[in-house]
């Protein structure tokens, strides 16, 4: 069936089966930053944002159900500059193999929108639907803290480091 998905601000017409998972639809549209790591909705490497700030596991949603809900993937995080969370993952060595990173960053963005000043415990809690096999999470926590700080700075006072 023909559907239109709005991904990162762009309408994409696609031909899918009802059973096509959103993750596959996004990847087939050439946006391969959204990954797949399991079949049991456990790992979260497929996480994307729906309606701007709702993180969902795109392997656990049919593409058809996403019609009418703008989708943000990792490719849509940066504007003309990196999103603070991207910069922070780099600065804090919050990634190793990079496979979990897109989902991890998108879950972090959703957290920061809801809670701009999360404690370490709150970060660990909010990210516990996303697995990482490489980093042991510690530097991911630091990255989210850095991003929180950067995002809380009044506009125009962007740090230059």
């Amino acid at each position, binding site marked *: 069936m023909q559907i239109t998905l709005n991904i990162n601000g762009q309408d994409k017409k696609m031909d899918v089966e009802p059973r096509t998972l959103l993750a596959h639809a996004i990847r087939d549209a050439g946006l391969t*930053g959204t990954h797949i*790591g399991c079949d049991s909705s456990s790992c979260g*490497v497929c996480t994307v944002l729906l309606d701007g700030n709702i993180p969902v596991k795109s392997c656990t949603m049919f593409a058809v159900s996403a019609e009418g809900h703008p989708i943000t993937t990792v490719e849509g995080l940066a504007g003309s500059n*990196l999103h603070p969370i*991207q910069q922070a993952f780099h600065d804090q060595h919050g990634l190793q193999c*990079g*496979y979990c990173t*897109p989902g991890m960053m998108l879950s972090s963005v959703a957290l920061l929108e809801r809670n701009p000043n999360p404690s370490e415990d709150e970060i*660990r809690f909010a990210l516990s639907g996303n697995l990482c096999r*490489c980093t042991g999470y510690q530097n991911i926590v630091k990255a989210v803290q850095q991003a929180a700080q950067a995002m809380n700075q009044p506009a125009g006072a962007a740090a230059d480091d």
Partner: protein
Amino acid sequence: MAIESPNLEPKGIQGLGKAIKRKEDSRFIVGKGNYLDDINLPGMMHMALVHSPYAHAKINGIDSSEALKVPGVKAVITSKELAGAGLAWVPTLAGDKQMVLADGKVLYQWQEVAAVFADTRQAAADGAAAVQVDYEPLQAVVDPYKATDADAPVLREDIKDKMEGAHGPRRHNNHIWTWDVGSKDETDQALASSEIRVKQHMVYPRSHPAPLEPCGCIGDMSKATGRLTVYMTSQAPHAIRTVLSLVTGIPENNIRVISPDIGGGFGNKVPVYPGYVCAIVGSIVLGVPVKWVETRTENLTTTGFARDFHMDIEIGATKEGKVTAMKVYTLADHGAFDAAADPSKYPAGLFSICTGSYDFPKAYAEVDAVYTNKAPGGVAYRCSFRVTEASYLIERSMDVLAHELKMDPAELRIKNFIQPAQFPYPSALGWTYDSGDYEKTLKVALDKLGYEELRKEQAEKRAKGELMGIGISTFTEIVGAGPSKDFDILGLKMFDGAEIRVHPSGSAIVRAGTRHQGQGHETTWAQIVSEELGLDVDKIIVEEGDTDTAPYGLGTYASRSTPVAGGAMALGARRIREKAKKIAAHLLEVGEADVEWADKKFSVKGVPGKSVTMSQVAFAAYTNLPQGMEPGLETTYYYDPPNLTFPNGAYVCVVDVDKGTGEVKVRRFVAIDDCGTIINPMIVEGQVHGGLTEGFAMAFMQEIAFDAEGNNLSSNFTDYLLPTSLETPKWETGHTVTPSPHHPIGAKGVGESPTVGSPAAFVNAVVDALAHLGVRHLDMPVTREKVWKVLRGAGIDAF
């Protein structure tokens, strides 16, 4: 407009010891990594596999007719078709052979039975679901101790009467080999005359590396050129190319293996799996590219398991706690085929590092390997060939001995450490340890933790009926396999290559035979070259994973990249520097003897200010050479290490135990590593965090378990448990630096130390918390229930 690729490059000369940010991050944080499943080729078909529901069964027939009716399905192959291509069976890395698709019978649950090729992944999946297989279930061998019973069923009909195996005689149809090392008689004697003897049985359970990116492969046979391109999630692309050439008969120069970005490997992505072979055969037969990407279930049930060592140890000691001898017997469950990825001469890997950090005068170890109805593997899961099992064995056992002696486990260790003056230290089981200062490292850890205070707290708590424990592990690893006189896989010597090309304008491209999976080689290799050549890191590009361009090498696993490829990188750079020095002399118009390399440039001795940089030399190498010199500034260096390296560390763990549920909470974990020279402290710390987390998972959650019929009980992430950010403890890390004396830059490798060293620290801590209740050992994973049993057994209850 979203940015495609940010410029995050660290700038300038950034040599050893600098915590520069990673060069490779740029593409990953914007979603532009290029993993296997991201590759789509024109006309590509998809493959799905049919799997056995039984652990042991005869196959009476396979009916593909319904599958072939599914729209989009183009072909189904079984063992019969593979036999036509001579590929029904392929050799394993361990001298055995392995079915690609079930040939007459299946030997483990989820074994690959047929491959379905279709236009879409949906059609392939539907086709696989439609293949009908007629199975006749047979009795399964699940318990390795029963594998060699007289009445045990024969698993491997193919070698039924072949009693000479790849590693010596086999004494039963399900016996693979027996390997031993050390002097049995002398060890027995030493044990017999020891004042104290302790024995312990312990199991290192079967586990799985489970990187978040599953394995996958795209076979792309070009009919036009006769060239086979294989995209594969491989930690060892060159070795794979050689193996593929040997099994398919395609000349090696007509095979190109490309290992794209890898979403974690941890040993899982070293072997050749049936799915890879089928995708390649599919491409050859169908004439189009064929992609196969594992499901998580396929990953956990059929590929690269690790561990599964069932160990018995006996240690002798004096009453004062000086160890006298160690004797080990291990039963290794290798599953249905011996596909362990170990160096040829070492079927039990480097398990003989089991004397650990201690000065054992005598030791003997024997390992028996058996077939069972489980998936093959035995990969080095974030571990240098069975070092994890060995380290766990000795570190757990030292606590058992301490318990017996009623001695503080730290004190017992200090009493028995190999002393700094003893290096190079010849161990009772034949290794020559390079360097270490074990007592210093332990003391740093104990001080950081506040050991004495915590022991006091523990005593007070115990008096009140509360349970806390402290566990220590002072492990020694053996990595960097290895010297070619002893180390090969399938005859391929375990060296590694580095190629460095310095371009006229002073930038460079560096290639290695290794393949990183998150370890940061694109940064660390650049740092080594920056250090040795004085080039800016942002002018050095590192490339790995394409066998057409990279120099040969055995790949990235077993913590061998830094010890071996890192050595190649440093020595290759030094070779370039030698030539550069001649050019520098020419430019400076002095004799070579008057030129020195200092402060990352060439200067005339004693003439301050008269110098040239490597960039200037590079330009001259292509524009202004001394008479008669070969132009260019590049080299390929193959490094054959003189010895292995012996990273070590002291880990200390504090746990609290919930008396009601048996839950164990890790309160603190201090990890002090000594991996010799540190190239990039940030990356080393990251590696340690990740490895500790996997050690934690081993100790408390991860296990590939089977029921009595051989059904795999851990076939997805709801049953095979990986810790999340919430369970994972906070790590406190640090290091001591005892460089390896024989390594070009003194580095030892660190990626695996934490996975190797930490499980014993966790288990020791739990056992320590319960020791006064009479507990001496608990097997991993230490579940709440195991602790609960102890508690209730001792009449302890709470809600």
